């Protein structure tokens, strides 16, 4: 399983765009990149998944460069409720793969 590296913490202000970058230098050909969000006292929640280029949904965008050795989760116009831990995971898209969760990035959104 590919190892990921992401910042331990980030601060932002309400209304700003937040970009969290994840490094995964040994990503394999069949690996996908998946991001989860976790609030205190809750289980993680799926945000977005992608393989290459750009993926966008109602919550976030995911940018993946051509070499796929990193990816950036972009949260537009964050609010206080976006304060959470964000996890970047890399693994095959075969359903049932046991992704490895690292320590994640603790995002604090300030008023």
């Amino acid at each position, binding site marked *: 399983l590919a190892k990921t590296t992401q910042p331990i913490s980030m601060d932002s202000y309400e209304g700003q765009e937040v970009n969290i970058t994840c490094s995964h230098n040994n990503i394999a050909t069949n690996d*996908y990149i998946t991001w989860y969000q976790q609030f205190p006292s809750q289980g*993680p929640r799926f945000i977005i998944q992608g393989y290459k280029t750009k993926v966008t949904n109602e919550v976030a965008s995911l940018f993946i460069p051509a070499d796929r050795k990193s990816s950036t989760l972009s949260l537009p116009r964050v609010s206080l409720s976006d304060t959470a831990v964000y996890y970047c995971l890399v693994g095959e898209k075969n359903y049932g793969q046991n992704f490895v969760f690292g320590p994640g990035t603790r995002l604090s959104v300030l008023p």
Partner: protein
Amino acid sequence: GAGVSQSPSNKVTEKGKDVELRCDPISGHTALYWYRQSLGQGLEFLIYFQGNSAPDKSGLPSDRFSAERTGGSVSTLTIQRTQQEDSAVYLCASSYRTDNGYTFGSGTRLTVV
């Protein structure tokens, strides 16, 4: 139900006692996972069930930990002779396909005193 249900939500037990934690996955989800999360830490994989295949137990920390999944649905994680280091939130997740990732339950907070 619409989501993954775990029970109990909180469990306090004395050191040395056995505990059982239950997970009801989303109906139709063939894959089920157990993770453990200690305070302020990331998630630690414990065990994974996929349909009728033999479970992947590679994450279980010791032989005091075991899990079953009956009828391809409900799962029970059992911890025997609990120790204080077993204190954590135990999270269950299920999936049908990874197109939308896993769906996690809210977890069981286990405190061993």
